[in-house]
């Protein structure tokens, strides 16, 4: 009963305030904010707290299980700069991030344009292209492992058919980084395609009719109508794919585990190795922070740059 009374008074104030959104005093419905408190608590405990803890750990030589550790200042970051493998690892991470993004967007847009034509069977093709999105990236990695593996790999069967020696694709640094990029692209090009298809369908036909009346060619229509009006979809796709590629982990673990040596390692798999194989938690935390900065900078820069180019 008490609560009901309070609620009634609440409602009266609210009606008096005329449901004004911003109020100098406490918002009449501010108690509703209690509804997001559970989510906020989880966020604080499992994201915010570990995030700051991670910065702290990166200034120590903690091994990941002892009770003791010492503060070593910026040593882990100094080590990172002097690490002979860090160059390869960052380069790989950028290839996985940036190149996957480029491929997924070009191919995804091409697929969307093609499957937007009313041709029989396009529904089935769309389903097939989208199917890998549903599959675990780890399993996707294993499936492609069978394709690229040395002994009895499907691709090597073809190589041998033409009388060549089988190639150890997954152990060869010339190949494996690009194979991983390819598998990531293959798996998620369906998302890019679907987002572009939705974008294409939202473009009003009138623009094209007007352009046709003015005698614009197909290419002109693409560059001056389709592409500018697709900018919101392009923004979403580029940012999503960048984040996905820069944090890539499962596919690398399935195909090469980052090997041989550091040849196909990304920051994420290197961190895994440093933490669990070398018990070097301080250094692993520093690598985690590097990854965080890299992903934040890339996605923020891409987002602000692309948003500015969207047609209002």
């Amino acid at each position: 009963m008490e609560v009901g009374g309070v609620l009634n008074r609440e409602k009266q104030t609210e009606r008096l305030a005329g449901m004004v959104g911003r109020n100098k005093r406490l918002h009449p419905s501010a108690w509703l904010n209690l509804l997001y408190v559970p989510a906020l608590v989880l966020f604080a405990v499992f994201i915010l707290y570990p995030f700051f803890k991670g910065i702290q750990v990166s200034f120590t030589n903690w091994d990941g299980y002892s009770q003791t550790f010492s503060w070593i200042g910026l040593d882990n970051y100094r080590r990172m700069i002097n690490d002979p493998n860090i160059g390869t690892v960052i380069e790989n991470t950028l290839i996985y991030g940036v190149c996957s993004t480029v491929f997924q967007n070009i191919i995804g847009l091409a697929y969307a344009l093609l499957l937007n034509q009313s041709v029989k069977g396009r529904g089935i093709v769309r389903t097939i292209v989208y199917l890998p999105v549903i599959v675990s990236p780890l399993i996707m990695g294993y499936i492609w492992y069978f394709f690229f593996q040395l002994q009895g790999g499907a691709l090597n069967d073809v190589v041998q058919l033409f009388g060549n020696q089988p190639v150890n694709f997954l152990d060869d640094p010339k190949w494996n980084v690009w194979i991983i990029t390819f598998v990531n692209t293959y798996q998620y090009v369906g998302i890019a395609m679907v987002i572009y298809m939705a974008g294409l369908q939202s473009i009003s036909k009138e623009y094209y009719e007007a352009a046709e009346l003015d005698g614009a060619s197909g290419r002109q229509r693409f560059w001056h109508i389709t592409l500018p009006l697709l900018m919101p979809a392009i923004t979403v796709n580029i940012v999503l794919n960048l984040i996905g590629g820069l944090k890539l982990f499962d596919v690398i673990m399935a195909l090469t585990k980052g090997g041989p040596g550091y040849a196909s390692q990304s920051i994420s798999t290197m961190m895994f190795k440093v933490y669990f194989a070398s018990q070097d938690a301080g250094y692993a935390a520093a690598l985690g922070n590097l990854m965080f900065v890299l992903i934040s900078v890339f996605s923020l820069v891409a987002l602000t740059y692309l948003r500015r180019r969207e047609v209002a």
Partner: protein
Amino acid sequence: MMKSRSRWVYMLLMLLIGAFHILPFYLLFTTSFKPIDDLSSKWVLPETWNPDNFKNAWEQANMGSAFINNLVITAISLVFVVILGALAGYPLARVQTRLNKWVYNLFVSAMVVPPLTILVPLYKLVADLGGMNTYWAVILLHVTFQLPLSIFLFTGFIQTIPRELEEAAMVDGASRLGLFFRIIFPLLKPITATVMILTGIGVWNDYQFSVFFLQSSESQTLTVALSTFFSQYVSNVGWVAAGSLLSALPPIVLFLFLQKYFIRGLASGAVKG
């Protein structure tokens, strides 16, 4: 004349794309039915269709218990992601104060943070809480990291529901909370489907959390069981292929039946961003 020729070009292109994208699934399929002494190329269909690989994979990789772990973890995570996400979305959509704008941005920016970047402290936290190899720890982590997207989608959706609906009910004397459950929540069905699909795929297929926090053989999920199995029996391709196919099957079957919702949900969720 021209029209029909370009039509053929389109058809041919689509056929090629379809063949290329179905290829790995075809190879997985043929491989998983071949007995170990069948050394024929993966391109060739098996001479005799041998289902033993599935039985062996199921037993050797401990997939029965892994399946149950996957089901329990996914189902409970889904319930929390939907309820907590919808609850949080309501004030964030309706009470537009500077504080709430800030809270909303906080949640949305969390979508960018991959859990791997804070793996070290997270691992320590879960170990300190005694959550290693437990359902609850991994569920809490899944819920936390899936919530930002859920909140983002629910908030966006609730904003599109006209306020007049609630105002009318409020004049009739309904409480604000009752209002949420009786008027808003039933309207959220389409977006709830989207959230469930996106969260469901994410949690079911997860490897990153499971491999760190569910290491004991009883608590393993499918991906972890499969990766252990893979490193043990990498030479026995048929078993591993059969195991991979089995674990990927539930989401694939679900997708084939609910395809419309999967694709529509994904597109609407992403384009709004």
